[in-house]
């Protein structure tokens, strides 16, 4: 099926759940309300004409300072029919929670943990919602846009003193 046709099928099935349909360079994204995400995903997997049995990718994006701030993109692919589509679900910054899709595609397990680790978006119903890449006692979520990258300031003669003061030196 053509991506646009798939998007329209989903829109017909969930007139309330599907918020928007975006297209860029032939790739179609279906923006789904988070309340309807699991149902839409289940339809995508089980429908005879769709058969999205393969979850290709999960990618989180932080649109700070816009609201709703976080988005998670689910790239779906059908091994049998060879077509693909993208689902997108937004989560607001003050309540960054999305339903888990591990019940639909088991492979979403680690990627959802990664998004929790990097963005602080937690997935409701996930069996093991813990950090995966960062140390367990880390504070903050590194991929958020308001999380500083952190770098060492280059030392010149005009700022030598100031940079020297800020450097971590061993204590006596």
């Amino acid at each position, binding site marked *: 099926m053509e991506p646009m046709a798939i998007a329209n099928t989903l829109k017909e099935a969930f007139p309330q759940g599907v918020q928007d349909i975006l297209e*860029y*360079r032939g*790739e179609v*994204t279906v923006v789904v309300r988070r309340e309807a995400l699991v149902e839409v995903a289940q339809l995508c997997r089980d429908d005879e004409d769709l058969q999205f*049995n*393969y*979850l*290709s*990718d*999960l*990618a*989180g*994006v*932080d649109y700070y300072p816009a609201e709703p701030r976080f988005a998670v*993109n689910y*790239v779906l692919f059908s*091994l049998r029919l*060879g077509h*693909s589509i*993208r689902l997108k679900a937004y989560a607001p910054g003050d309540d960054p929670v999305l339903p888990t899709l591990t019940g639909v*595609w*088991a*492979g*979403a*397990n*680690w*990627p959802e943990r*990664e998004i929790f680790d990097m963005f602080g978006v937690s997935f409701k119903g996930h*069996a*093991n919602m813990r*950090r*995966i*890449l*960062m*140390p*367990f006692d880390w504070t903050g979520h*590194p*991929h958020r846009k308001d999380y500083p*990258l952190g770098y060492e300031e280059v030392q010149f003669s005009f700022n030598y003193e100031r940079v020297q003061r800020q450097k971590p030196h061993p204590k006596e």
Partner: protein
Amino acid sequence: MFTGLDLTHSTDIETDHKTVELALKQLRGHISEKAFTGDTMLLNMGPQHPSTHGVLRLLLELDGESVVSCLPDIGYLHTGIEKNMEAKTYEKALVMTDRIDYLNNLGNNLAYALAIEKLVGLDVPPRAQTIRVIIAELQRIASHLVWLATHILDLGATSVMLYCFRDREHILDMFEMISGQRMMGSYIRPGGLWRDLRPEFIPALRKFLRYMPRKLDDYHRLLDNNPFFIDRTKGIGVIPSQIAINWSISGPLLRGSGVNFDIRKAQPYSGYDQFEFDVPVGQNGDVYDRYLIRMEEMRQSLRIIEQALERLPGGPVRSDNRKFVPPPRAELGTSMEAVIHHFKLWTEGFVAPEGEVYVRVESPRGELGVYLVGDGTSKPYRVHFRTPSFWNLQSLEWMVPGYMLSDLVAIIGSVDFTLGDCDR
């Protein structure tokens, strides 16, 4: 990461006990109840262990010698590459992609370059496309040779490791010819390639094409009917195809389970649809099948390279769209416009439109995807790498239980992950 059994910070025995209790509490539900009564043993494998192929830590629950549960713990090699790329211009960020999967450097370049080209709508000349295919396939062979070397070394055969690294050296020499670097080449750039092939590359490649099939025959002779090898790989680490699909496993691991899915065939890129090659598919989904598949993939890669060499077209190797690709050095002396483009591209960089694209390629390990978000500036707003090692590695959790501890080593080798690829 697990707090699990990390006793390095405590000094007295009482704190030790508290830490262990806390750690065990966290593990409840992930390991069997027998571990709490002491009927089974918890064993830490890694992060520094020769057969974990990097810094992978496995928390194993053992009943005698058989594995009851296996909890992989990753993140030791997390370097924040995705975050760092957001702070660089599109072209400067390219050098970081080499470092993601250190056995598939130029393949990572390819995936990232394809994503940029799709995002901004950039053309690639036919000569560059064909050279990209040659390089991607050489990289596949090099990566599979390292897999074979380390996998067989884990199973106890030392000499195969030496042979494989000897053969891989020929490929690295060729990479050095074209890019000046053995490993971190950054040779594939948005819009084409860094520069044209050096004249000595083609003869070296032809020599390699004559040399490599004989060596592959040797490996087959060494291993195919070797009773030790068969005992340790047949019927080990079986993944049923339905489960493999549901867990989004990709690459030789998925094809070993009998699913015919290769992105070079399913969604061809860089002109792969013009080449004739077969996709080997296994039947049993065990370690031995994955061995056969990777061996056959090397042969098919040689086939693709041969075809590509035959039809290698002439012409430029980089797009002449000056808004994205810097002009050749010679033009700078004669053209004012070229100077302006040169200055703009090496200071501000090119501007990508607002949009989001997902591009995927078949890396030696499986599906390598790049999710790229542009926001109308010269820096990527978000780059996400869907790395095959990360997605394949989660299968260890349910693939290992039930097998012996020594089988675990064979299974880890057959997954063929690199931790750099996994943790990014």
